């Protein structure tokens, strides 16, 4: 009796969850379907086209006269490579400093770091733009890449700090007795142990800077430097928008994030959980 009641309850929860999952992912299903529809089928409510075609992808890929999407993907991926390298190196260095070395005012600076997490980007936007403009860096990737080398975002430093604090200090002591330098301690002992946290930093840096549309729009003006996001915006601003092609290219543009997510899911959930909880 008791068993059957809990069983029917779990069936109910499953039904609810399946229904909710479908509702949540429905726009995505439709998106995939729409990208495979030809112009005559775009107006139908059917989620899947009767005759799926790759036309939208082929034409969308070549929508701009000057460059194909290969160029825009290439630009974005190159920028992302630098962003990820910068964020991983600088967040691990800074986090090590904060969590393993006792230096003057370290508590104060850490509090400042936490406060910058709440700082709205709009406040620094204009002076930063003026500064980069004066230095001649507008229409280059420098304003987009440089911040990742300078701390890589307070959030990531915090994430890695939380991780390092979970590593027993006895390891440090042992390494010190063996005569390891502080940098050696960072490089040879701590760095290998915080790899899971750094994978998280890399993933989120990749996804967030992919989506950071406002900065890309501000700092990149010439088409040869455009990222995928900017190319999509150029696509929308056309006089006669080909929705099928636009949807196909937008779908393609979220593929890198989606693939990373599918392959690194485990890290994702753990990463969010540790920072979220201990905040």
């Amino acid at each position, binding site marked *: 009796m008791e068993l059957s009641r809990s069983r029917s309850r779990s069936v109910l*929860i*499953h039904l*609810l*969850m399946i229904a*909710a*999952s479908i509702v949540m992912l429905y*726009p*995505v299903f*439709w998106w995939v379907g*729409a990208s495979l529809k030809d112009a005559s089928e775009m*107006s*139908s*409510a059917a989620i899947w086209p009767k005759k799926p075609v790759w036309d939208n992808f082929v034409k969308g890929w070549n929508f701009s006269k000057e460059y194909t999407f290969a160029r825009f993907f290439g630009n974005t991926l190159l920028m992302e490579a630098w962003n990820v390298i910068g964020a991983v*190196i600088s967040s691990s*260095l800074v986090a090590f*400093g*904060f969590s393993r*070395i*006792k*230096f*003057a005012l370290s508590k104060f*600076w850490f509090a*400042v*770091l936490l406060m*910058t997490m*709440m700082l*709205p980007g*709009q*406040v620094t*936007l*204009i*002076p930063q733009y*003026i500064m980069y403009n004066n230095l001649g860096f507008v229409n280059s990737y420098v304003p987009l890449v440089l*911040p990742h*080398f*300078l701390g890589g975002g*307070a959030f990531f430093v915090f994430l890695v700090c939380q991780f390092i604090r979970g590593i027993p200090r006895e390891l440090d002591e042992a390494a010190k007795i063996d005569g390891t330098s502080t940098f050696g301690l*960072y490089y040879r002992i701590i760095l290998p142990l915080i790899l899971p946290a750094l994978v998280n930093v890399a993933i989120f840096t990749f996804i967030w800077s992919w*989506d950071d*549309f*406002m900065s890309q729009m*501000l700092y990149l003006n010439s088409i040869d430097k455009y990222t995928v*996001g900017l190319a*999509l915006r150029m696509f*929308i601003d056309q006089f006669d928008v080909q929705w099928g092609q*636009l*949807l196909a290219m*937008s*779908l393609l*543009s*979220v593929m890198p994030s*989606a693939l990373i997510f599918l392959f690194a*899911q485990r890290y*994702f*959930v753990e990463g*969010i*959980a*540790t920072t*979220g*909880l201990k905040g």
Partner: protein
Amino acid sequence: MSILSTKAKREAGRHLTGYLFISPWLVGFLALSLWPILQSLYLSFTDYSLLEAPRWIGSANYKDIVHDPLFYKSLTVTLTFVFASVPLKLAFSLLVAMLLNRSIRGINLYRTAFYFPSLIGGSIAVSVLWRNMFGMDGYINKILSIFGIEGTGWISSPDTALGTLVLLNVWQFGSTMVIFLAGLKQIPKELYESSSVDGAGVFRKFFSITLPMLSPVLFFNLILGIIGSFQMFTSAFIITKGGPANETYTYALFLYEKAFSQFQMGYASALAWILLVIIALFTLLNFAASKYWVFYETEAR
């Protein structure tokens, strides 16, 4: 004497090493945060078009802003957006997290399904999708017409445009949900068991155990949710372009256009500082209020 000085030297070396390690962040903070904040405060008292040197005009920008109907419009739009999407998103993600917080098969699959939209939702691509789906002959209206309902242009109608943006925001509840889920896992099972023995019902358990135990996580999500929603830009820029009739003209959009379409850098800096003060006030208010409802376990010990 010499022992003391080597000790002092080692001490100084340690401070230096510490600062060396945090120097990437410290340089970034000074050059890309602190200096720009101070500079934007200065610029907010000037007239500056980027072409000529800034000209000091005192508090004229602030006086103009107070009389600018667009300032009030954008502030109202943004506050409406914040007050609609933050509570909705929190409530929804907490509800789903509680449903998922049990050992059922396939939980990872559900979690993936719920998390995925929050992963891609901030991208310009999803804004494109939204604009298409909620358009006059978009997918949503097609579905409605099957049921014999005549839809409107959800994005072109002033009454519903902001609603579509709120919906897009709430659709991305997954990351908040994952944080809640992790928080729920930390609550000791014994608390629920002993309250069951005492005959507590579902609601009683929620208000007496779940909510207090989860309050720090809820607080964290609330603060970050408010700060994030105040700065909403991409979706308003791509989906509605601030329209129709400025119904989705968010504060960030207003600031962006003042600065980079009209090149009124001084005016836009004043807007930025007002935003900073508003967000700081909200955050302080939240911290003050948190004394009454956020429960930290260490207090009880």
